[in-house]
């Protein structure tokens, strides 16, 4: 009989999750979201140089690799499901 065991875990999880959410709500974690957007910027790193064309091409290359992988997946899946 494993249901009581799982149910206890689910209920404990819900209780802890609910409590933390309630704390967050009450302690103003969801207020002042505009300022929160800037929190990571406090210790800004070294100034980067100007954007290079090479850099752009490299990122485009990554995107095309990623796209190629997705397209290959879709094409092969389509082929496997419908044509073979």
């Amino acid at each position, binding site marked *: 009989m494993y249901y009581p065991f799982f149910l206890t875990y689910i209920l404990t999880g819900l209780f802890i999750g609910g409590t933390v959410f309630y704390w967050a709500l009450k302690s103003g974690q969801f207020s002042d979201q505009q300022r929160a957007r*800037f929190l990571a910027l406090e210790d800004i790193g070294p100034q*980067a140089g100007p954007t290079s064309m090479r850099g752009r091409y490299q990122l485009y290359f990554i995107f095309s690799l990623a796209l190629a992988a997705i397209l290959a997946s879709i094409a092969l899946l389509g082929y496997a499901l419908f044509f073979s």
Partner: protein
Amino acid sequence: MPENLTRPNTATYLTAKGFCLTSAAWMMVATLAGLVAAIELVAPDLTGNITWLLFSRLRPIHVNLVLFGFVTPGLLASAFYFVPRLLRTQLYSEKLGIVTIVLWNIALIALVITLGAGFTQGREYAEMIWPIDVGIVLVFILIFFNFAMTVKNRKEKILYVSVWYVLAATILTACTYAMGNVIWQPDSGALSGIPDAILLWFYGHNVFGLLLTPLSAATAYYIIPQVCRSPLYSHTLSLLGFWALIVIYTHIGTHHLLQVPVPTWLKVVAIVDSIAMVIPVMAFLINIWYTARGKLGLIHEDIGGKFVFTGTVMYFIVSIRGSMMSLPDVQRVTHFSHWVVGHAHVGVLGFAGMIALGGLYFTIPRITGKPLFSRFLADLQFWMIVIGVAGFTIVLTISGLIQGNAWLNGETVYRILPQIHIYNVVRASLGLLIFLASIAGCYNIFRSLFLTSGENS
């Protein structure tokens, strides 16, 4: 030297440095184990009768070392840097941090020795024997305690989304690891029958969903705004993504068991929520990509940012694939095949591993006050991994579909082996590329932390 790298800083960041080294070193061991295992798929007799090099022992060593030796410590390294900074305070205890690192490494060494010697509990991602399980749970509790006390001592009232993710990842992993490894049954580490499978995959999926994903998201949410020099697109959206992840991810473990006689309602919940994963995934990606909009040049300039941003692209791919694989009609073809292995590599190496490395390269100059030893080596490692992961994805997807289709049509396993042989060869050579990348990374990180004034990156 850039201004902020020379800024006097009282923090020692010893814990962050320790986790940097842990990750860099174990990445080499983990990828070497993977490489040897991949070669064995091509040449099964290669290692003869050396029992501790059998595929069945190397595989769990590889998988567990990648998860707990390379990726998690890499992500924790940057977390130990940015959590105190986001809270405008110091880490609660660097000493405690060092204790956790030592314990962590002892657990990893014990993991390699015991699994190599054949001591295993035989459940995927939960192979380690009981004493190691206890050690890992203890380490996560200690890390959570350190972070929680840092939160308590904070000078910034609002918890930035990265802090939410790190706290959740550490405490939830302590709980689900203990649960999933059935830690109250030291001998077997298992329940019996179907409930055990359900529990195991609840835990197994949570390793990705409640450990790697939140830690990676936390790192990206910290690094991308910094690198782009612009505020996060929406903090509200990020919190929505956080809570959605907690609610949805916990329900989808059973999508690993669609071919198993588990209750149908549970499969339905798992499938529906696997599709619903699009909510937290897109909340995260839209937020990060909108923050980076028009700033790709800045991202390219920062090697850490470059790794992290690429990791987010991989997250898109792995999630789309994941949601597709959760559909029973698709999984009838893909289950148990190399397709799943392809998905696993995009997720763990392409997404979480890339972000972990990005976190290391972003953090190291800031915790040492010196530039990286070599930007070139880091760039080289970046390209080797990108090519490796993209190659894995393509090769494993193709061979997975060959296997899946053949098996679905009632073909026997051995008759398919010649057809996938070439893909296994390519896979092993890509593995070599990634192993070499890990050596380059480890050397670079070691030199950056200890020995050098560094080239100007």
